């Protein structure tokens, strides 16, 4: 590090400095983040706002008389399913359920797992050893088997789905937070803070949290995709959100029963799942590379 100029230094000089760059260049740099963020926003708006604004039939309690209507039917643009429920409606309400589960699980992971990991990394010693061995045990189980076992034990409900999936999310967040905190511990400002008499809680919330936050946040966005898929799998197996309430996993399961007759019905929830997961993943990944380049 001794007083050297290098090409890399100039690279840094040119990559930041947005001051005078043209408007187009600025937008182009932001595109990898704006595009997936836009997709996520559209999905969220569609699932949470659209049913309130537009007259959309309820997702359950459909009439058997109007079951299995084809795509493009009046009042049912995507048709209806075996039970006569509007597929578009189920798609939107199902997305709502999937997103709520994913956000809840990730927030639990972020706060519980993140705090546990950061504490573990900061305090080190015995606390660290105990916490990490406990989490190791959880991680050692295959994720799906663990969630299945918990879901089975608790019984299917939205709350229990969240709890089951958290068993899988919290250790992952804790690991990431701990590793990031350990790296932070090496930096002299942490030692300087100690000399400054900064209290443990201030260390955790003012020094550690803002520095590991971005990393956890991008991990959380990547986690959204994973959780949505896993929730889908749980629901598909009948251990997630109890049917007939819609969720994308439930819809895929139901459509798969009538696959030979109406194959198109599998496509809708699958596409929704694919697009949402992809958007979250891209957003997380691009934010991560943006933040790490600083």
């Amino acid at each position, binding site marked *: 590090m001794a*007083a050297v100029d290098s090409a890399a230094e100039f690279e840094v000089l040119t990559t930041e400095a947005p001051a005078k760059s043209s408007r187009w260049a600025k937008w182009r740099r932001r595109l990898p983040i704006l595009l997936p963020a836009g997709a996520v926003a559209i999905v969220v708006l569609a699932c949470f706002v659209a049913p309130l604004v537009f007259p959309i039939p309820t997702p359950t309690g459909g009439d058997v008389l109007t079951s299995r209507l084809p795509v493009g039917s009046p009042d049912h643009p995507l048709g209806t399913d075996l039970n006569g429920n509007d597929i578009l409606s189920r798609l939107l309400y199902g997305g709502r359920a999937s997103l709520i589960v994913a956000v809840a699980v990730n927030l639990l992971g972020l706060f519980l797992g993140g705090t546990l990991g950061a504490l573990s990394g900061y305090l080190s010693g015995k606390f660290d050893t105990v916490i990490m061995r406990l989490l190791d045990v959880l991680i050692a189980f295959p994720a799906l088997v663990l969630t299945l076992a918990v879901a089975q034990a608790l019984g299917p409900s939205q709350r229990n789905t969240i709890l089951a999936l958290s068993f899988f999310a919290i250790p992952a967040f804790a690991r990431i937070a701990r590793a990031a905190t350990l790296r932070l511990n090496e930096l002299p400002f942490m*030692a300087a803070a100690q000399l400054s008499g900064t209290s443990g809680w*201030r260390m955790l919330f003012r020094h550690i949290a*803002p*520095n590991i936050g971005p990393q956890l946040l991008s991990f959380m966005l990547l986690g959204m995709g994973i959780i949505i898929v896993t929730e889908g799998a749980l629901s598909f197996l009948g251990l997630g959100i109890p049917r007939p309430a819609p969720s994308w996993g439930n819809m895929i399961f139901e459509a798969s029963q009538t696959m030979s007759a109406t194959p198109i019905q599998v496509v809708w929830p699958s596409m929704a799942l694919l697009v949402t997961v992809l958007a979250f993943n891209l957003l997380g990944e691009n934010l991560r590379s943006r933040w790490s380049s600083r």
Partner: protein
Amino acid sequence: MSTVEQDLERGNVPVFDREPLLQVRNLDHTFTVKGAGGVKGGTVHAVSNVSFDIMSGEGLGLVGETGSGKSTLARSIIQAPRPQSGEVHFRGQDLMRLSRRMLKRARRDMQMVYQDPFGSLNPKWRLEDIVAEPLIGHDTMSGRDRDVLVGELLDRVGLDPSIYRKRRPMEISGGQCQRVAIARAIALNPALVICDEAVSSLDVLIRAQVLNLFEELRRDLKLSYLFIAHDLATVKQISDRLAVMHLGQVCEIGPANRIYEAPRHPYTRALLDSVPGLDQETGRARRPVPLQGEPPSPLDPPSGCRFRTRCPRAQEKCATVEPVLTDTGDGDGHQVACHFPLDPPDPSAAPATVPRTRSTRDAPSADPS
């Protein structure tokens, strides 16, 4: 003229009249190195049996190569982490025996400045918050008083508070970061500031500015320094006394003037000879004389004197008997750990550091007509 008289002439109080601010006695700090697969790989005696004093208002320069344990020593003094054994008396209190709470109070008066300017500051914080941190951690000062003081501190280290207050570390240069770290270190008006390679990563011009800042602060605030660097030139300005560390041990300690003029330990001599110098008047370079051999591994230090494998004066005794720090008899606290120390300077002979000219093959260009 004795050094004591010189001290008096410079307006400094003679050393023996003063209460030591910091007394380090027989300090030991060892690490267990993990080998492949987490197996115990060996023990490193990073600091072994180190003792020294720092008087109040005094600058002690500490030099040594990579792996000499100088940074570990600094961390051992502030008890982060606590060393294995020994005593660290700071203002009469043994820090080794203090409870966590008492230690926090004692640390109020000792601060540290680190090598990495950017790593020293939390990248997410504004400079004013960084400087205010020790004021919040140690004091119950009102927010308004704190703001005023932070402004004064930034100003004191040469940063205009109206410009820099709200900036963040990434928006300023390395030299400015180091100034902020210094402002934070002096915020509580400490008695001792430990500088661990604090200027080593700065460019020459900025390094000179920061060195001057340290010196000015010493004069104005009566600070004491433990100033750590890997070369003798850097610590020259701040050092009243000098300690040279080699592989975890102090091999020579004493008044800086005396050691720079006439070192007694061959290692100190080698360090002095390794500094490439330039006479600013004549433009003549003093070409370094390289020390032969590789520095020994701290995992497996040589028996007896740890310097003997590279020492031009080494004899059989050096391999068997470990030399201890012994008074040179100069009467000014100059101590050396060597069986065959270099001769004290002969007053009739020329000074020890004769500028050496460049080798003969450069003769044509060395003679600008």
